[in-house]
């Protein structure tokens, strides 16, 4: 029971990170209907920017952790957002009216480019960061097994929930959110009604990248090491989460992220750590076969 509880906490933490990345996939897919393959690498770029700014702040003598964390979050979100914007501008916008496979290939090309750019610019080795936030609560003890809820985990889950609420409000309440939903429904019509479609799409990428940056910061803090390759696997899993939750749905992305995180953690804990990714992907296949539009997605009616 205690072991189960501990794994539940770990799974929700990991799921939060996947969920935040998944939102970027789901928003972009919702609005322009493409898999932004480079999104996982945007997350990785966010983690690197966070790493560098953390070390810079610490070495500049800023040791008050909450302030440092806040500054790092702001830096990482804004600069990663810039990367998200640039990727869309260079690789996707010229192909907006083109056929479906072309942006997919440029997305894969961008993913390769970003990975290798970071590898050449920062080196291929894993980059460690000293533990910044340590300690936590012991919420339960039984037969010598202690269930821990670390401050780090609380922070991750709180930030995720907070951002989730904030973004849901943006989508449902603001003019930007309305424009996004309009573009999702019918881009031509949205354009005719005076919505700046290019700007809306750009902002979608910016928002997705900023969330990925937050996920990058949390990944960095939680695991303490990053390398240029973390984006690929996390990206696939986050996309899996987005599809699982029902692509285009924000709560779905979060839910999917949680499920993938939990499956991964529980599978590792109870079965075999080697096959945790196989378990997550099998889940994806099963869901898609039996619920093709995901858990919270709108069912796609086949028009004849």
């Amino acid at each position, binding site marked *: 029971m205690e072991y189960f509880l501990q794994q539940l906490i770990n799974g929700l933490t990991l799921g939060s990170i996947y969920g935040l990345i998944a939102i970027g996939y789901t928003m972009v897919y919702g609005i322009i*209907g*493409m*898999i932004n393959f480079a999104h996982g690498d945007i997350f990785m770029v966010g983690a*690197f*920017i966070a*790493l*560098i*700014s953390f*070390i*810079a702040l610490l070495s500049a003598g800023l040791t008050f952790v909450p302030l440092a964390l806040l500054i790092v979050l702001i830096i990482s979100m804004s*600069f990663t957002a*810039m*990367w998200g914007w*640039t990727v869309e501008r*260079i*690789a996707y916008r*010229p*192909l907006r009216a*083109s*056929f*479906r*496979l*072309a942006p*997919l*290939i*440029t997305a*894969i*090309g*961008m*993913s*390769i*480019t*970003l*990975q*290798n*750019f*970071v*590898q*050449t*610019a*920062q*080196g291929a*080795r894993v980059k*460690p960061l000293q533990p910044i936030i340590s300690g936590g609560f012991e919420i339960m003890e039984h037969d010598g097994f202690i269930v821990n809820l670390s401050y780090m985990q609380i922070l991750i889950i709180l930030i995720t929930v907070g951002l989730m609420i904030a973004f849901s409000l943006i989508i449902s309440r603001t003019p930007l959110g309305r424009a996004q939903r309009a573009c999702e429904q019918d881009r031509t019509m949205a354009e005719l009604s005076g919505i700046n479609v290019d700007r809306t799409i750009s902002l979608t990428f910016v928002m997705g990248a900023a969330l990925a940056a937050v996920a990058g910061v949390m990944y960095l803090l939680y695991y303490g090491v990053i390398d240029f390759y973390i984006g690929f696997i996390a990206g*696939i899993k986050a*996309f899996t989460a987005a*599809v699982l939750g029902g692509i285009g749905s924000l709560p779905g992305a979060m839910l999917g992220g949680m499920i993938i995180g939990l499956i991964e953690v529980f599978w590792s804990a109870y079965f*075999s750590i*080697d*096959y945790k*990714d*196989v378990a997550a*992907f*099998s889940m*994806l*296949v099963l869901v*898609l*076969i039996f619920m*093709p539009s995901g858990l919270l997605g709108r069912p*796609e009616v086949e028009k004849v």
Partner: protein
Amino acid sequence: MAVPGTELSTRLPGALKDAAIAAFIALALFVFLIGIRTVDAAGVFPLRARPWLLAVFVGAIFTGRLALNLFWWNGSETSGTLAKALAPVTGLAERSARWLAPALIAFAAFLPFMPFADRYVLDVSIMVLTYIMLGWGLNVVVGLAGLLDLGYVAFYAVGAYSYALIATHFGLSFWVSLPLAGLLAALWGIILGFPVLRLRGDYLAIVTLAFGEMIRIILINWYSLTNGPDGISRIPRPSFFGLQLTRNGEPSFHEYFGLTYSPLQRITYLFYIILALALLTNFVTKRLRNLPIGRAWEALREDEIACRSLGINTRNTKLTAFAIGAMFGGFAGSFFATRQGFISPESFTFIESAIILAIVVLGGMGSQIGVVVAAVVMIGGFELFRELEQFRMLMFGAAMVAIMIWRPRGLITAREPSVYLKEKKPVSADLVQEGHG
């Protein structure tokens, strides 16, 4: 260069402003990732500032953007200039397809006897041919049937491991193991294809990607069968009618023909094997395209619902496309295993799938000669930058983006009809659908 009314001097302020904005964006992008380097050695301050490198990059962006503004984009036309400039070249390639193919085959057939054909040239050629073969195999699935498969490497891996296991455990020769490995890969194509073929579009893409990763993870972890990350070594080399192409082989090729031993003999032999395999792939896929099954694949790509209304069993049609694509992937995998003599899961990552897909899409979906051109450009080009070890994957990714933006429909865009009444007229790519699943 300058269009009337848009003299350099009048365009200069705007160009400068645009270049300055680009430079500013570049500064923002690069300030952390290039401007500061994390030092690998553990130290007190594991960061090193690189202001000069940052300045070089930002300066390069500024100059490049300024030059583009002034000399390339003449005010109005922002894109398509390059495409127009190169249109004669690609147009020539399209028109010359009739004699280009035989010329290329002839060139390939005599390549090992060319004076410049040293071991390196042959090695690269073998690699290019392997990718051409994989491209042709995947073309059936993606180009003809319009099914987006991001996990093609799975079948390449199944072929390679099947061959390696059959050859090392049962001692069967290359020529027996090869078809077995191909059949096993086709079987896997059907097994993996069966559950997922109801899925549409990007869902199919992501599930095939997941299958590709799953197979790799299983190869890494199923130690008792695959030897895990250590891979399988000492995979037997192919023999020439029972003659071994090794120094101490018994009976050996060079002794039988009274030649002195040279490793080049084996490389040349491998070259001809892959050439034959690739040509077989080409022959079969071209033939299939003109048969009812091939037409059904293409019809499926155009409109699945119409296919069903015409009595076509779309599930079986998709499965055959998957199985045939997988089979050729399996053949290529067997060849890869016998050429390397050693395989490990490292060789079957997603990047391989991406490269093969890029070859198909860059070549122009469904075009056989396009795959050849794309494979030569991508794989050959990749080899040219061998010296720049660090940068070549970076260049590779950037080239993928650039070529796709330049020609979103690929290099060879026109579709050739499978049957004609009076005259064979190519179908413009703008009319051809890219498929929904």
